[in-house]
């Protein structure tokens, strides 16, 4: 935009006028409830403004403030049952109830809570830094006397006048007063708000549009009354009192915080909403927090452990109570050495029940080692590291756009390994959303020789890929690319048209009009690169850009747009040279999903008024004039052909208007535009429809919606992995089916169950007067179609034929009714592939919810656009494609990837690994805590259940934090059952996650049993080996401290070596952590034993003096270690050899070196749990069978 001021008053001719709009509809609400805001513009310091005391512009996105951090984050921590329990234990440990010293109990809790809080603090500090940066940005604010000063954003007040310059962000929600343009318009980029990259036009009120100088604000005073802060981005109601006059304000004057001023030198605006009152802040809701299935099951296991804990304590206190009561038998002391005659309530035989109850509390504290205190914090650390791996994976890094994969939430990593159903958007997800102009039909002739991906795929599908032709084709493409650098969005090859040859075609006049329409009828904005002089376009949608580019390449270069005109360099067919033409732009009737077309009205240099219109075939053909249907038949035929080839088609038509007709339209249209009532849209539509008729058909365009790189391969892999893929698209059925074929979701010979409302009978129904009856009838029809589909399904369950379900939006609306949806789901789940077309964003979300809740399986939604947000948030996992369509989907996703094909690696490799790691990590956690906790319990049985722990206090408390925590974290971060290559080679491995093989209750209890077994062996072997007799050569016997240290050594060895046995991937890090954990135990034992006996108490010199010199200590450790691990080792050897799990089979293959033996690999692949029904592999196998 060159930016010069035009003399012509824009408002007179442009569609939106701001003149004397009347106060209609909602504006009457102003001043009432919900519309109470009053802004004294340019006078924020005044008394009246002070009364309202609106928020400052300081924005805080942090979770905590300095003051609330401690209480709030502590509260968050202790909301977890396990943490709360440990807090209670810590408090109780200060009472005489405690079996151990208070400090030793508090330290691990402090470490764990401190680590989690530290993590919170770091995260919050990052947000804080962003806030500080944001709040300290500068903007020019009117201070007094027409002088503007740079002021920090946070110091802005409601009512301030600000001046925002080009490419700056708006610091708050502003009302536009004036701009560098005469017409007081400005362009705004709202990428941060809704992800749309196109520029939006805003315009100030006429009354303020003349304030072009800083000095004009010296005495400017006005009063604005408007609605209260709310989250609705697209509505705004207010009025401005300027002098005696009142003017209505609409969203057209509202500039939202976080959007950017573009193509405009500066604007003046008045601040109306600040800080947290701004629409964008009101919109920023916390995304729904998602928890993985594994985490939910983990909670259940924790509860189970609590149950065991209570049970153990209960048993213990009963025995303790009995033993205590018997200590005093009719006044005669039995265990006199305990002085039962002179005791406290804790051991009083006369009050044995009370003693038992109190002992119960003691036992609860003593056995607290059953509950893994560090589990949650370990899981969090592991997940953060796993996310880093995902973010850093070079195989998911998209070099072209410099976009790595991003795990936006880390708590769903393992859920990635359990996905059962993928619900995918089509446009921008499966396809690139880069449109290529590939074919057109003009005057009944089809031009364009390009072959689409879909056509190629279809040729392949028909089994007749003429290889020679293909090679030629490719050669041709290469040739072409050599000739000139390929132009993005343009893949049109036809020598009849290109290079200006079209003038020689028989209907050159039509082609001329056709191309001119392409160059004029759009809302794109040209940007001229000053160096090369090349024109690039910024358009609302990529197909629009494709049109303008096509027009440019074919000789109609659109190079300038002002508010009132469009300028082209066009090829004059008569003169045969390029001339500049200027078209006066009168109206743009924009595209809307209900209208399905857009039009522009221009006046050409000859003064003729033209209405240029393009739109969907369904709406365009009925609007043609009787004499404008010359090419209708051929064009329709071509459109069907194009749609078959997976192309998007639009019909182009035009009409000449006479002056009268135009002035009539202008009046009505302006009136409709100016109305502020709620039915404004309909009014505009009505007026537009009156004019958009009697059109003359020019032809049709076909744009290819290109499949993204590697999509068919990726879908094939996912299908082999047994993941169901549903496509939910807003496109029409034909396009959706074509894309389905292109990416092998559909294939020939697959029975297609089509549920559509486009059947003839339904059409008849829709014409019925009675809407309710029509709806009921349509619903009945959908129900019938579903039942028919189910019959097919039952029929085909015997035959290997796969079914595909295709349903359109209207039918889907009925299918999602409460009484139908179960049947629908049953049918859909039975089908190999499901395609929902013409579905609205809400329907996408509803389908997702239906699958998620009814089947209970993990769903993953993947999409790129704002229309997928609902679906992404509803699904268990939302994956956003950080593609072209802005950031909206990414912002509401859990994972963001740049290309659909990375989903393969994200799920099959990272998903599988994370699932495996987290589940084995949690199992192992339970194992090690049960193994430890049960030795304590067994010991109690030998200590009269008195609550005396077998180990030194610090041994107890450091068990979870030091000696066993690092290896388990290493397991969670690094373990790989099979390498990435094999994960991808044997996609079926993924089913281990879907069927939850590694975290089934059986497996969890298996590990728990292993823990109990280990504890039993450790305890009984230790005490049997150390009972009575002298422990060393010097005749000394083993007391409590030696038995404790020995048993503890055994536990540390056993749990660490158990870890070494159960992992299948040793890097230095595992070695370091596992063996380091053991070595650290010995170092600790020596160090702790060397300090003053007052502190080390029973551990004083226990290792140096007693254990280390005694041969029996080492022999016992060795024996207990091996014999405790032998059962597990034998079990896993037998399982590995005779009942291998899928990943173990792959390990076999690898270790046998049979990976290169295709037959063998095939055999393993064939051991599928579920037959593959979609994807090209299935296609091949089908063909083989035939």
């Amino acid at each position, binding site marked *: 935009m060159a930016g010069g001021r035009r003399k012509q008053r824009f408002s007179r001719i442009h569609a939106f006028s701001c003149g004397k709009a009347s106060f209609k509809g909602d504006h009457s609400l102003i001043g009432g409830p919900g519309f109470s805001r009053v802004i004294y513009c340019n006078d924020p310091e005044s008394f009246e403004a002070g009364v309202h005391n609106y928020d400052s512009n300081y924005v805080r996105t942090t979770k905590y403030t300095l003051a609330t951090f401690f209480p709030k984050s502590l509260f968050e921590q202790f909301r977890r049952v396990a943490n709360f329990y440990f807090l209670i234990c810590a408090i109780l440990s200060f009472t005489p109830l405690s079996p151990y010293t208070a400090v030793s109990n508090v330290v691990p809790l402090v470490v764990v809570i401190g680590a989690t809080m530290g993590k919170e603090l770091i995260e919050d500090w990052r947000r804080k830094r962003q806030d500080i940066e944001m709040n300290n940005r500068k903007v020019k604010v009117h201070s007094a006397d027409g002088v503007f000063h740079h002021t920090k954003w946070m110091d802005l007040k409601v009512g301030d006048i600000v001046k925002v310059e080009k490419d700056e962000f708006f610091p708050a929600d502003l009302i536009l007063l004036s701009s560098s343009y005469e017409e007081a318009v400005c362009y705004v980029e709202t990428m941060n708000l809704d992800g749309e990259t196109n520029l939006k036009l805003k315009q100030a009120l006429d009354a303020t549009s003349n304030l072009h100088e800083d000095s004009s604000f010296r005495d400017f005073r006005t009063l604005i009354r408007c609605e209260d802060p709310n989250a609705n981005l697209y509505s705004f109601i207010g009025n401005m009192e300027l002098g005696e006059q009142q003017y209505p304000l609409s969203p057209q004057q509202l500039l939202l915080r976080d959007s950017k001023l573009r193509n405009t030198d500066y604007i003046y605006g008045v601040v109306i909403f600040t800080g947290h009152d701004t629409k964008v802040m009101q919109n920023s809701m916390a995304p729904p927090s998602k928890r993985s299935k594994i985490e939910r099951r983990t909670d259940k296991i924790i509860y189970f452990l609590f149950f065991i804990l209570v049970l153990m304590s209960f048993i213990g206190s009963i025995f303790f109570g009995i033993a205590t009561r018997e200590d005093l038998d009719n006044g005669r002391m039995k265990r006199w050495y305990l002085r039962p005659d002179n005791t406290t309530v804790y051991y009083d035989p006369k009050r044995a029940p009370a003693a038992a109850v109190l002992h119960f509390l003691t036992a609860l504290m003593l056995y607290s080692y059953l509950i893994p205190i560090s589990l949650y914090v370990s899981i969090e650390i592991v997940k953060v590291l796993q996310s880093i791996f995902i973010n850093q994976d070079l195989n998911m890094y998209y070099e072209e756009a410099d976009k790595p994969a991003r795990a936006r939430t880390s708590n769903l990593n393992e859920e990635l390994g359990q996905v059962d159903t993928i619900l995918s958007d089509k446009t921008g997800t499966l396809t690139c959303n880069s449109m290529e102009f590939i074919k057109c039909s003009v005057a009944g002739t089809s031009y364009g020789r390009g072959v689409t991906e879909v056509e190629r795929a279809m040729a392949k599908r028909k089994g007749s890929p003429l290889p020679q032709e293909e090679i030629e084709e490719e050669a041709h493409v290469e040739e072409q690319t050599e000739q000139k650098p390929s132009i993005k969005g343009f893949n049109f090859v036809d020598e009849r048209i290109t290079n200006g040859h079209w003038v020689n075609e028989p209907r050159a006049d039509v082609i001329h009009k056709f191309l001119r329409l392409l160059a004029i009828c759009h809302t794109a904005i040209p940007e001229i690169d000053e160096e090369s002089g090349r024109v690039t376009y910024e358009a609302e949608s990529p197909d629009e850009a494709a049109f303008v580019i096509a027009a440019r390449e074919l000789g109609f270069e659109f190079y300038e747009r002002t508010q009132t005109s469009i300028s082209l360099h066009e090829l004059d067919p008569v003169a045969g040279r390029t001339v500049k033409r200027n078209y006066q732009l009168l109206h743009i009737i924009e595209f809307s999903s209900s209208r399905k077309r857009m039009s522009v009205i221009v006046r050409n240099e000859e003064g003729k008024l033209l209405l240029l219109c393009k739109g969907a075939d369904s709406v365009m053909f009925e609007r043609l004039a009787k004499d404008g249907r010359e090419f209708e038949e051929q064009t329709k035929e071509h459109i069907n052909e194009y749609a078959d080839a997976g192309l998007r088609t639009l019909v182009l038509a035009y009409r000449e208007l006479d002056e009268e007709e135009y002035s009539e339209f202008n009046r009505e249209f302006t009136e409709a535009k100016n109305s502020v009532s709620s039915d404004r849209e309909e009014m505009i539509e009505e007026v537009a429809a009156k004019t958009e008729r009697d059109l003359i058909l020019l032809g049709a365009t076909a744009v290819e919606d290109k499949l993204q790189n590697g999509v068919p391969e990726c879908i094939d892999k996912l299908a082999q992995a047994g993941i169901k893929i549903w496509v939910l698209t807003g496109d029409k059925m034909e396009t959706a089916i074509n894309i389905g074929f292109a990416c092998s979701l559909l294939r020939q010979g697959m029975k297609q169950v089509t549920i559509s409302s486009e059947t003839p009978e339904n059409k008849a129904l829709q014409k019925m007067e009675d809407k309710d009856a029509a709806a009921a009838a349509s619903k009945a029809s959908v129900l019938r179609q579903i039942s028919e589909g189910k019959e097919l399904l039952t029929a085909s369950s015997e035959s290997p034929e796969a079914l595909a379900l295709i349903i359109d939006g209207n039918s889907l609306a009925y299918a999602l009714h409460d009484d139908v949806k179960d049947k629908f789901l049953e049918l859909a789940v039975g089908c190999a592939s499901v395609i929902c077309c013409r579905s609205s964003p809400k329907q996408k979300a509803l389908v997702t919810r239906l699958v998620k809740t009814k089947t209970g399986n993990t769903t993953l939604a993947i999409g790129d656009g704002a229309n997928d947000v609902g679906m992404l948030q509803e699904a268990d996992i939302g994956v956003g494609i950080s593609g072209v369509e802005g950031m909206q989907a990414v912002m509401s996703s859990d994972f963001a990837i740049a290309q659909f094909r990375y989903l393969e690696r994200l799920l099959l490799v990272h998903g599988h690994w994370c699932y495996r790691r987290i589940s084995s990590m949690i199992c192992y956690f339970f194992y090690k805590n049960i193994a430890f906790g049960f030795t304590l319990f067994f010991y109690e049985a030998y200590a009269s259940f008195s609550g005396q722990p077998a180990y030194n206090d610090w041994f107890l408390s450091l068990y979870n934090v030091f000696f066993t925590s690092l290896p388990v974290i290493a397991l969670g971060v690094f373990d790989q059952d099979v390498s990435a290559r094999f994960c991808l080679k044997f996609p079926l491995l993924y089913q281990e996650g879907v069927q939850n093989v590694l975290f089934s209750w059986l497996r969890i209890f298996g590990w728990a049993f292993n823990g109990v077994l280990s504890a039993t062996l450790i305890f009984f072997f230790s005490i049997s080996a150390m009972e009575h007799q002298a422990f060393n*050569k010097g005749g000394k016997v083993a007391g409590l401290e030696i038995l404790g240290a020995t048993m503890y050594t055994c536990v540390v060895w056993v749990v660490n070596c158990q870890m070494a046995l159960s992992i299948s991937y040793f890097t230095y890090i595992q070695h370091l952590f596992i063996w380091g954990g053991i070595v650290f135990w010995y170092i600790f034992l020596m160090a702790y034993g060397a300090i003053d006996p007052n502190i080390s108490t029973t551990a004083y010199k226990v290792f140096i003096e007693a254990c280390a010199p005694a041969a029996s200590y080492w022999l016992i450790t060795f024996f207990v270690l091996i014999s405790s691990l032998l059962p597990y080792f034998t079990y896993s050897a037998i399982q590995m050899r005779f009942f291998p799990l899928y990943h173990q089979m792959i390990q076999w293959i690898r270790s046998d070196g049979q990976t290169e033996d295709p037959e063998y690999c095939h055999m393993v692949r064939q051991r599928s749990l579920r037959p593959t029904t979609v994807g090209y592999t299935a296609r091949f196998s089908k063909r083989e069978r035939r």
Partner: protein
Amino acid sequence: MDVDGGSTSSDSTRVRSIPIRSGQCKAFLSQFKQQSLPACKPVLTPAWVIAIHLLLGFVFIPIGLVTLHASRGVLEIVDRYDADCVPEEFKGNKVSYIKDTSVPKNCTRILKVHKYMKAPIYIYYQLDNYYQNHRRYVKSRSDQQLLHGLKYNDTSSCKPEESNNGLPIVPCGLIAWSLFNDTYTFIHGTAELRVNRKNIAWKSDRDHKFGKHVYPFNFQNGTLIGGGKLDPNIPLGDQEDLIVWMRTSALPSFRKIYGRIEEDLEADDVIVVHLMNNYNTYSFGGKKKLVISTSSWLGGRNDFLGVAYIFVGSSAVILSLVFLLLHVKNPR
């Protein structure tokens, strides 16, 4: 188990193709981030399983044999005397016998040496059903007082034996109060066997836990006398039977060292033990035993470890054979 560092080579070469030049650290970091660190990936192949089982067997059985041999080499004479030392008239009411201070408590036992016992020969007393590991009991001591004596006066942990008649007790607490006080004298032939009662406690206890200048004070002066008394003129650091007693046992059945006989005993020697049966185990039905034992490099006599080693070792061998059989019978 096979070490498979090379299988990741395809990944790692790709990783290296991105510009990483300087140094090993960066290479490591990138391998780390791409999760392609060189790693050992063990797989439990049948060969390994059988080999490991066999290896275990071949390591365990010899260890077991050696251990068992060491244990069998230890000679042990165990004599339970708590029941037999009660005079006939008190058989029905042993508790009143032990509580009656007027009844003489001496008792004579005759031990026969079956085999040659080489010095040093250790003397133990063994108590059964005695919960020295009861929490109340274990906690009822003051380590500070044991080390510092009367200078340290916070003895609340010693309740109910922390003071008597307003004066603190040294050593305080239930453990000290219930000190074992049976005594033994050994007659070999005609001469008394010298029993060395020095150096029976852990050195660290003697040096660092019990004060060299802390003398018993106000001990066993209460109305209820627990166990043995202490010579108030010998510092705690030298009262080794107290020190041994104060190291609480782990299990309710335990031995504690009493002393050492430092001369060899020949086979068929007869030893007469004159003992004072002072300690009350009758109230709670505990047993008292006198144990005379030699020691080996492994300690005292306990066949468990040796037998267990042999058992586990042979199980491993059997398992490996079974596994081998199954493996051969069911080829994959």
